[in-house]
C-alpha cells in the first residue's frame, strides 16, 4: 500500500473511531414546576393556608429557571422552590414539590439515556437528571416531613424523616453512614405527636436527643448557608465540598412567657456533605481525566513527529531525492492527522464533576422541645439571637405544635 492510500485510510478510520466514541448530549423534556404548584394550590384545603395567586410571584425565578433547564433539573428546582414556599408559609406547595422530588429520587434510573451519556468521555456528568448528593436527598425527606407534619399527616411524616435518614446510608465512608441524627430525632418527634410513645423513645435514644414525655412544642431554627460544591483536580474531575463564607454559628434563645430556652444544634450540613466519602462515578471521572491527558500527549507527540517529517521532507527535496521527500511528507501528513484527531478527542473530553447544588439549604439546624399547657400571648414564642430577633407562631401538628424559622443569612 502506498503512502497516499495509507493517509486516506487513516483519515477515514480515525473519524469513524471518533464517531463511535462520541456520545450525544441528551436533551431533556420541559420542566413541570408550574404544574406541581397549580396541583398543590388546587388540592389544598381552602383556608389552611393563605395563597392568593395560583403561581405565587415569589416563585417566579424558579419557574423561569425551570423553563430553561427542564426536567433534567426538576428535582433541584423542587428543592429550591420548596424551601422558598415554606418560608412564605405555603407548606402545601412545599409538600407537593418535595413529594415529587421524593418520587424522582426513588425512581431507579436503569438504562437511562441521559445517565448513560454522562458516563461517556464527551458528555459531562451534569447531563444526568439531578437527584443530588446524599445530604441533599436526605434534606428532601426533612422538608417533606415538616410539610407532612404541618398538613397534619404524622404517619407520612414518620416515613419522610425515616426515608431521608436512609438516603444518608449512601455515604461510602462507613464511619459516617446513617449519622443524620436530626432525622432520627424528628421521626421520633412525629411518633411522639402521633401517640406512639414506645417507638418514639427508641428513636430519641438513637438520636442522642432526649425529651420529656410531656413536651408538646418543637421549635426548629435554621441558619447559615448551604455547603458549597466545587470541582477540584486539574480537569475539575473531583467533587469537593466546603463551608460557605458566612457568620459564625450563633447561639439562640427562645422566650415563651417568663421562661427562656436554649435550642441545641442538631445538624450541621457541611459535616454531612464533607463526610460523604468517594462516589463510584469518581472513578469514571478520573478515567475521563486520564483519557483527556493521554489523548493530549498523543496529539503533542504526533505533532512533533509531523514537524520532524516535514523538515526531513524539505531537506530531501533540496538534495534532489524527491522520492524520499514525498514519502516523508506523507508520514508527516499522517502524523498531522493523528495529532489533529487526538487533539479533538482531548478537547471534547469533559471530566468535570457535577456541581449543581441546592443553594438555599441552611447549614445549621437548632431544635428545642418544651411543654406548653395553655397558650399565652397569641401562641407567640420570641427568638433572640446575636444577628436577629423574630416572633414565632407554632402550628398544630397532631397532639403537638411545630414552629419553624429560617434565619436569613
Amino acid at each position, binding site marked *: 500500500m502506498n503512502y497516499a492510500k495509507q493517509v486516506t485510510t487513516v483519515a477515514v478510520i480515525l473519524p469513524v473511531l471518533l*464517531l463511535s466514541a462520541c456520545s450525544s448530549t441528551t436533551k431533556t423534556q420541559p420542566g413541570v414546576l408550574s404544574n406541581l404548584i397549580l396541583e398543590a394550590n388546587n388540592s389544598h384545603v381552602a383556608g389552611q393556608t393563605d395563597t392568593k395567586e395560583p403561581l405565587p410571584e415569589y416563585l417566579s425565578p424558579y419557574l423561569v429557571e425551570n423553563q430553561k433547564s427542564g426536567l433534567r433539573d426538576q428535582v433541584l428546582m423542587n428543592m429550591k422552590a420548596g424551601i422558598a414556599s415554606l418560608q412564605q408559609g405555603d407548606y402545601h406547595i412545599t409538600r407537593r414539590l418535595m413529594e415529587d422530588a421524593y418520587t424522582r429520587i426513588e425512581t431507579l434510573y436503569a438504562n437511562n439515556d441521559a445517565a448513560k451519556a454522562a458516563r461517556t468521555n464527551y458528555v459531562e456528568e451534569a447531563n444526568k437528571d439531578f437527584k443530588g448528593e446524599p445530604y441533599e436527598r436526605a434534606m428532601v425527606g426533612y422538608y417533606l416531613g415538616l410539610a407532612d407534619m404541618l398538613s397534619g399527616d404524622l404517619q407520612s411524616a*414518620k416515613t419522610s424523616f425515616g426515608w431521608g435518614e436512609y438516603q444518608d446510608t449512601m455515604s461510602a465512608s462507613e464511619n459516617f453512614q446513617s449519622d443524620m441524627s436530626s432525622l432520627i430525632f424528628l421521626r421520633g418527634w412525629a411518633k411522639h405527636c402521633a401517640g406512639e410513645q414506645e417507638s418514639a423513645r427508641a428513636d430519641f435514644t438513637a438520636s442522642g436527643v432526649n425529651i420529656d414525655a410531656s413536651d408538646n412544642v418543637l421549635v426548629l431554627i435554621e441558619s447559615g448557608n448551604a455547603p458549597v460544591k466545587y470541582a477540584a483536580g486539574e480537569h475539575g474531575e473531583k467533587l469537593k465540598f466546603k463551608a460557605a463564607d458566612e457568620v459564625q454559628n450563633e447561639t439562640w434563645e427562645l422566650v415563651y412567657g417568663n421562661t427562656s430556652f436554649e435550642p441545641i444544634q442538631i445538624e450541621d450540613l457541611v459535616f454531612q456533605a464533607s463526610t460523604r466519602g468517594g462516589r463510584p462515578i469518581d472513578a469514571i471521572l478520573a478515567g475521563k481525566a486520564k483519557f483527556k491527558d493521554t489523548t493530549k500527549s498523543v496529539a503533542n507527540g504526533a505533532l512533533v513527529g509531523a514537524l520532524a517529517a516535514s523538515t526531513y521532507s524539505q531537506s530531501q527535496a533540496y538534495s534532489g531525492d524527491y522520492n524520499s521527500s514525498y514519502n516523508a511528507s506523507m508520514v508527516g501528513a499522517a502524523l498531522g492527522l493523528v495529532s489533529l484527531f487526538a487533539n479533538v478527542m482531548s478537547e471534547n473530553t469533559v471530566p468535570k464533576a457535577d456541581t449543581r447544588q441546592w443553594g438555599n439549604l441552611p447549614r445549621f439546624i437548632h431544635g428545642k422541645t418544651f411543654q406548653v399547657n395553655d397558650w399565652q400571648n397569641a401562641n407567640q414564642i420570641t427568638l433572640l439571637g446575636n444577628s436577629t430577633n423574630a416572633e414565632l407562631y407554632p402550628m398544630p401538628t397532631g397532639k403537638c405544635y411545630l414552629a419553624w424559622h429560617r434565619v436569613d443569612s
Partner: protein
Amino acid sequence: MDKFLFTFICMVTLLGCASTKTPNASGIETKYVDPTLESRSSGVGLESNDVINMTDSMVRSILNDPIFVNLKSPPRILVDETGFTLDGNTRINRKLITTKLRNGLSRAAMGRMVFVARYAQQAIMAERDIKRTGMVDRGTIRQTEATAGVDFKLVGSILTTDERHSNGLTSRYHFINFELIDMELGVTVWADAYELKKTGADDVVYR
C-alpha cells in the same frame, strides 16, 4: 479532492457529536393502562398492582375466616386509615389501601358483615340533628337511639427494611400487616399479611 474529503469527514464528525435526542419529544397521548399490571416506572416502593393484589388477598382471607362465618348477626366492622400506620420508607396514601379493602369487603360480604361509616360521622350527626329538630322528616327506614358501635376494627401497618449492596443493588422488603381487633374484649380475632420484596440498581452515576 483530498481537501473535500477531509472537510466532509470533519463535518460528519462534528454533526455526530452535536446531535441530541429528546425522549418522547412529541409527547405521548393519554391512554388507559391496566392498574393490575406491573408499572413501567421503576422503583422499590408500592405500585397500583401491589395495592390491588394485597387488598384482594385480604378480602379473601377475612371472608374465609370461620370466626366471621359462625356469627349469629353480621358483625359491625370499622375499616379506615386511623389504625393503619406507616413504619418504613415507603410513602403511600393509607386511605387508598383501607378504602379499597372496605370496598372489596363490602361487595364480597353480601350482608355477612356491615361496615361502620365513622369517616362520615360528622355528616351522620348533622342529618340526625335536623331529623330530630323536625327540619326534615324521619326518613323511610327507622330511627335509632345512637349510631353504630364497632365490633371489630381494622388495624395494620406497612413495615419495610431496605438493603444496599456493594454491587449497587438496592432492595426493599415490605411486610404489610392487617389485623381485626375485637373492640370490646381487646384481642386480635384475625391477622394476615402481604409480603413483597423488590430489588434494582440505579445507574452508577447516581450511586
